[in-house]
Structure formats: C-alpha cells, structure tokens
C-alpha cells in the first residue's frame, strides 16, 4: 500500500475526487474540504414531487445516489406516492441513525427500489425522540420485521405497525443498543442475572 496519496485514483466520471491534501496525522478538520457534496437531483420524478410538496422535500444526489430529504409530516404521503406512482414496489431497507445532539435526534431512512425502472431512491426524514413514525407495513409487508428491528435497536415507535415488539433482543431487555448513548460494553445486567444466572455478561 502506498504511504500517502498525492491524489486518489478517480476513474469515476465525477469531477470531484476525494483527494485529501492533508498528511495522515492532521486533525479531522482537514479531511473535509475536498470531499464530494450532495448536489440537487433533477429528474422527472423529483420535479413532479417537488411540484406537489414544494419546499417540504429536497431532492439530492450524492455520488450518484438519489435521495429525498423530507419533512417528517410529509413522509406518509411521499412514500405513498413513491409506491403508487413511482412504482417503487420493493422496500429494500428501513433504518435509522441517531444524532443525540440534534433537536430531532433521529434520521429515519427508507431505501426503495423500483423493478420496472431499475432505480433506487432513499427517503430521509428527521424525527424527534419519542415521535411516532408512520408505519409502511400496509404498503410494503416487508417493513414488518424491518420496523421491528428499528424499534428494537433505537426505541423508535411506528404508528400503525401490527405488532411492534423486539425482534433480535429478548422481550424483557431494557435499553436500545444502537443509540449513541448506549455503550459498546453496556448490557442489561438485571436481565442477564435473572435469565442467565450469572453475575455479568462481560
């Protein structure tokens, strides 16, 4: 492996390479300037949705991948439209990202794919801790387990989910491991002691 790159190899047509001028020991701040940035995404679909929702959604494209940054209240309508009119018939994944310092602490993501158009799109919206996120089980039945996993890992509640309960962790577990304030060594000691009969899982 080369010691330090003068510029990264960028076979992609995208003009913005990820050349990092700084030497490795530099502080993280120097890593940012040369990075690619999201650019507005222009397509018939985004224009059509933009027309309907106005400033409520912003279509972006990052490294060739398209997404809508949407207001939380518009999410049910937007997903409905994407499903019915946009032919996004396959819900690839639903997941969340926790930003504890932000007022609305969670980014919710719906990754969609359309078989007929061979196109992917992501819908991204911010929700506050404790807010109800609309469930999409009726649109895409696959969301059932995906939403349960988000609930299990982040404690995000989905409104309209037929049976929202933990899926990977035991039912009685306390805490939501993928939140940033949940430590990597942290465990529900009480649960471990009662159910496994040992002092600690660590």
């Amino acid at each position: 492996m080369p010691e330090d790159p003068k510029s990264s190899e960028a076979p992609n047509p995208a003009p913005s390479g990820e050349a990092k001028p700084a030497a490795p020991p530099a502080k993280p701040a120097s890593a940012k300037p040369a990075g690619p940035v999201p650019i507005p995404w222009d397509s018939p679909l985004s224009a059509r949705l933009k027309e309907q929702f106005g400033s409520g959604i912003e279509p972006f494209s990052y490294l060739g991948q398209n997404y809508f940054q949407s207001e939380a209240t518009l999410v049910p309508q937007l997903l409905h439209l994407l499903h019915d009119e946009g032919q996004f018939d396959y819900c690839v994944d639903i997941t969340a990202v926790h930003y504890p310092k932000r007022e609305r602490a969670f980014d919710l993501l719906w990754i969609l794919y359309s078989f007929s158009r061979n196109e992917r799109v992501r819908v991204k919206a911010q929700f506050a801790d404790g807010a109800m996120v609309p469930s999409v089980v009726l649109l895409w039945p696959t969301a059932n387990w995906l939403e349960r996993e988000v609930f299990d890992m982040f404690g995000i509640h989905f409104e309209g989910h037929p049976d929202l309960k933990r899926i990977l962790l035991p039912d009685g577990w306390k805490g939501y491991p993928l939140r940033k304030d949940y430590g990597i060594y942290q465990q529900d000691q009480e649960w471990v002691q009662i159910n496994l009969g040992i002092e600690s899982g660590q």
Partner: protein
Amino acid sequence: MNDWRTTDSNASGPVQTQPEQKTFLDASELVINMGPQHPATHGVLRVILKLDGEKVLGLECVIGYLHRGVEKIAENRTYAMFNPYVDRMDYVAAVSNGLGYCEAVEKLLNTEAPPRAKYIRVILTELNRIASHQLWLGTHALDIGAMTPLFYTFRDREEILKIFEKYCGARLTTHAFRIGGCQYETYAGFEDDVRNFLNFFAPKINEYEELLTTNRIWVRRTKNVGVISGKDCIALGVTGPVLRASGVKWDLRKAQPYAAYKEFDFDIPVGENGDTYDRYLVRMQEMRQSMRIIRQAVDGLPEGPIMAKIPKVLKPPAGEIYHSIEAPKGELGYFIVSDGSTQPYRLRVRPPSFVNLQALDVMCRGQLVADVVAVIGTLDIVLGEVDR
C-alpha cells in the same frame, strides 16, 4: 394456546390469519415449538407452529439467538478493522460479504479497485457462490431425507476451500479482500487450480442432478411445496434465488453491475412455479452460470496492480452511501454513514437471510408440518446473518 393468539402477528400483508374458532373444546389446534436446537433449522432458529393436525395454520419465527451487535461493533472500529467482522455474518459466503463491504467503503471513498483486483474478486466470489449453493444442497437434501448428496457436495466443496486456503490462508472466514483491492497477489498456479476445479466440477453437477432431479421421492417432497408468487416475493422483499424461482428475472449482477460483472456473459436462470423444486433447479443452474463467469474471468485475468491508491488511514468524506451486491442468498446491502472520521458513524447491514426468513410464514401456510423443514431448507438462511 392463548399466548400464541396474543402474539400471532407475523401475518403481514398478503396472508391473514383465519378467524379464531371459539368452541368449548378447541382441540383441533395445536401449538408446537420447533427449535432453537433443531437440526433442520440450520442454526439456532425457533419456530412456533400453529397446527391443525398435520396442516400448518401459521407460524412465528423467534430469532436473535446469534445476535452479536455487528452494527454496534462497526461504530467502534475503524473501516479496515471492521472488515473481518463481516465474514462472520453469512459465514458460508464470507467472500461475498467482504466484497459488498469493501465496495461500499470504496464507493464512500469515491474510488475503485483496479481491474485485476476486480477480476480476482469475481473469481473468488463466484467460487464462494458455488460453495454456498453446495452447502445449501447438501443440508437441504439431508433435511428431506436424502443423505448421499451431503457427502457428494462436501467432498467437492473441499476443492473450493483448498483454493481459498492457498490464496489467503483461511477456508471459511476468509477476509480475502481489502478496501481498495486485494491484499494478496494470486499464488503461482492459481489459474491452473481454478481451471482444474472447473473441469473437475462440471460433471459433478450432473452427478447431483442424477441423484435428485428425477428422483420420485425428491420430486414429491419438493413440487408444489412452499409456493410463493413473484408478487408476494416483491412485497415481502424476498431476493436471490427464491425471487428468481418465482419467475422474476432480477439479479443485481445484471441489473446494477458491480465489480467486473459487466464484462462477462452469463444468464439469469428463472423458475416458473415458485415452489421448492424450482428453487432447487434455479440454484443448480446458478452453479453452472457461476462456472461460466469464472472461466471467462480466469481466461481474461488482466495484469496490473491489485490495490488502488488509498490512504493508509481511511477517513472517508462525510456522507452516506448504500451499496448492495447479489450475495448467494439475495441482495446484501451496506448503508454507511461517515462523519469524516476513521470510524463509521453508522453502519447498517441489509441481510438477505433476515428479510427472506420473513416469508417463511407465507410459504408454510396450508402446508404439512413436514414441509416446514423443506421450506426452511429451500430459503437457504444462515442464522449468523439473520441475527448479526
């Protein structure tokens, strides 16, 4: 029994539970537990079955026994340090996991592996697809009662594992690729080994097929068992051979080509009926197609570097990326959020086995209890990947 009713809820979308029968002595329904230690669940999967005699009325999967918090671990490791962890998800197709992860991070870095590395990746990934399908075939046939294929497939899978071992020193959790390309140049004789394997293996698939394809017991146990329509597959997010056996011609290697797949000529085998027998046929054909790809890749293996110029300390620019590949089980996706530091801010794995397992309920309803074993086998799940 009341417990079951309150927790019955796997019913999602296409199929709904039948209305409850409220009789004085409700003896027709039986709730039985299968697993988590059961040889036919291919790991630690617990299935709660609601039966009417031999007929399955519904079932619920209880998973999570192998949950290790892979996504949490990723947030606490650097990009390179996390690489070996992905091998431990779908441990029978570790090479595919590694390929998906490396390509996702490369995308985040806005770089690409050099052509030679891409070809090596394709060869090893397709070998791994064959190995994964072999293991599926052996165990699936064993579940149904045919013991011989297990010995045949494990005998032949050994040859693939030997190539992996010679290439990177490991047989199962290979950690074969690095972000930016490959760590190792191919060893002397690699191409001959791969060609020898192809010549050795071509007649072996016929051998498997001779044992099973027209075998009356096999056909009776698999035809019209666990039928799922293409529409239901899409609604339930089912991908991979299961989707293709239901007649949907969709393969990420063709739909959104990654690595070097654009340069190879191969077909996507599809089924018609979406039953267990068609899924068997599709996977058998896939092994043949994989051999075609490997042969083209070995013959056209370009010269050149095997590692892109990437910094020693990886700090991808802040941003989010989703990248997915066609793993042997279906669409394997990685969603990575970078905050510009050396560790992923968030890493989400979209595991094919997890999503496919959700369809078990739909596929088993109305079937006989013995068919549940066949359907679990035909879904080809790996619990390490379901639970992560």
